């Protein structure tokens, strides 16, 4: 699957934006500027970018507690996201959702989700709506290896198959469900093998390789658009930070993350591949790097200077009408 230069640069921009967003959130959280629970996607960028490259805003995704990357890859406004993480009134959800609840329905982004395994049933419903609408749209559920063990996920795999829905389940197996190894917690050989038992098309993918994800996702999305039913992508990838910010990660080897960053980093691999192939010049990537840094800097500055929600916001938007 050959990508045009513009597509390569767009993919790089998304991955780089996710990375810089997360690295900066890590710093701001440590400085005490961001309240609450924050779960970073750094290291997993190729998966969100490789899947969402095939989606339009008429397609749906549902995310997880580790959702910033999916939001950015689906085109959600970075300023609005940053302000939301800072709990500001200018945030995408008016400061009432926070990191775990960023959503933008206009873009088909059905929300990050604070409940592990919360998303798959919702995506099954979005896929049903897409199927009934008959416009060839699809719905994608991102699920962690932790969420892959939830009954909601199993039930949704079955229901999507029974109803022959245009649904794609993307398991992001980053090796750890919170602090517990996915090698230990997934009883089957893999999620791909397990989902095959549900009758889904499945494929195991190197989630650090943008091109591998892009290709596998492309096939799954096309299959769904063609009415040929649901698929599951089992992506093996790496989490650079803890389960949540503040996690000392004593369950990991001492040089584990350092080695992963050095040997497997998806951005490094992508850059190396596209520059060595001659498709993209290093200067093109450097220019994007600079723009992304400015974007993040700008978003943080805006968030910090934005007002907090007003007291009256406490009572609004519980219902459409009541």
């Amino acid at each position, binding site marked *: 699957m050959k990508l045009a230069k513009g597509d390569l640069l767009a993919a790089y921009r998304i991955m780089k934006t996710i990375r810089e967003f997360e690295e900066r959130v890590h710093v701001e959280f440590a400085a005490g500027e961001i309240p609450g629970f924050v779960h970073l996607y750094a290291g997993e960028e190729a998966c969100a970018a490789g899947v969402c490259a095939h989606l339009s805003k008429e397609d*749906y995704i*549902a995310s997880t507690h580790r959702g910033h990357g999916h939001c950015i890859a689906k085109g959600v406004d970075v300023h609005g996201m940053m302000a939301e993480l800072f709990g500001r009134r200018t*945030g*995408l*959800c*008016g*400061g*009432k*959702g926070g990191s775990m*609840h960023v*959503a*933008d*329905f*206009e873009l088909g982004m*059905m*929300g990050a*989700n*604070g*409940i592990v395994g*919360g998303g*798959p*049933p*919702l*995506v*099954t*419903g*979005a896929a*049903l*709506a*897409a199927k*009934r*609408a008959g416009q060839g749209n699809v*719905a994608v559920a991102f699920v962690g290896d932790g969420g892959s063990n939830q*009954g*909601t996920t199993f*039930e*949704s795999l*079955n*229901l999507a198959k*029974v*109803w022959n829905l245009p649904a794609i389940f993307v398991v992001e197996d980053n090796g750890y469900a919170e602090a517990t190894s996915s090698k230990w917690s997934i009883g089957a050989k893999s999620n791909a093998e397990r989902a095959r038992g549900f009758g889904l098309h499945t494929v195991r993918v190197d989630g650090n390789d943008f091109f591998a994800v892009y290709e596998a996702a492309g096939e799954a999305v096309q299959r769904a658009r063609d009415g040929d039913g649901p698929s599951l992508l089992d992506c093996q990838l790496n989490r650079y930070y803890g389960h949540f910010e503040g996690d000392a990660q004593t369950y990991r080897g001492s040089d584990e993350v350092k080695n992963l960053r050095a040997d497997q980093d998806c951005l490094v691999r992508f850059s190396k591949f596209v520059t060595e192939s001659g498709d993209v010049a290093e200067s093109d990537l450097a220019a994007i790097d600079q723009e992304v840094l400015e974007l993040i800097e700008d978003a943080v500055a805006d968030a910090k200077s934005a007002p907090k929600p007003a007291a009256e916001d406490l009572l*609004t*938007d*519980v*219902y*459409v*009408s*009541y």
Partner: protein
Amino acid sequence: MARRLTFQQAINEALDQEMARDESVIVMGEDVAGGQGTEGEMDAWGGVLGVTKGLYAKHGDRVMDTPISESAFIGAAIGAATSGLRPVVELMFNDFLGVCFDQIFNQAAKFRYMFGGKAETPVVIRTMIGSGFRAAAQHSQSLYSIFTHIPGLKCVVPSTPYDAKGLLIEAIRDNDPVIFFEHKKLYPLEGEVPQELYTIPFGEAEVVREGDDVTIITLAEMVHESLKAAETMAKDGVECEVIDLRTTSPLDEETLLDSVASTGRVVVVDEANPRCSIATDISALIVQNAFDKLKAPIRMVTAPHTPVPFADNLEDLYKPNAEKIASAVREVSEYKAWKATASTS
């Protein structure tokens, strides 16, 4: 034109007419058609008690059988609701809440607020409540207070065929998640129901009987038991005002407090268990807002703090009835405050 329909027929007609009116309305749940994938009749069941019977024949694949996977299909209804459909999904017995509550209270109920007012989730969850079927502990509960507790959900508990149709149409057209509780003992109840489409607004309790002496506040099947009790007490010269809540969220506080202001004596009748219930909620509301109007302590007539028993004699003991209600009414109507007693002695 009003005809006599059963509660069950009124619900079926509301679903049928709304599906005909609006293509985005779909019905889904376990056996709502029945017979999917079998060699027999596709429209075999129409729901476990036949409430959706005939809808598949008229509306085809908009009536969707599901596997027994409440988390997935209730969640799917919720996800579909945020994606342009207006699903009416059946949670067969409200007792099955335990296998799918996350999708209802952490997902559907929270979307509007935690996404900053941008989500609309026009889903209706129809579910059966109520004891009296000898169906024992896991198929007989009345759990509306658990749902009423959750901000973001609306809770509808109709007591008549007329209300069932009007409130269900209102629920389908409403843009928030609505839980629609159907008391299984009410399904055969007949009443006048107009053929036309009509809606009954949420948050409007109905005074189903007027009276000056005691206010009975109740809902669902207990409305009918309360009316029987009121007739019994009228023979003794005690006139009860009976109020049917119709919706527990939103709650029509004004109608309740107005009645309490005129009678000063209150019995709250609720088939559910007594702790943290609609009965305690209403009692607290009255004490907070109308303490100075009360001439007697509020009496609650509820089930005991036990699961629903199976044996017929025990279930009959468990359930509030007209006799128990009349006894509570007698107690509050005869109550004299100690101050009044002191001043006359």
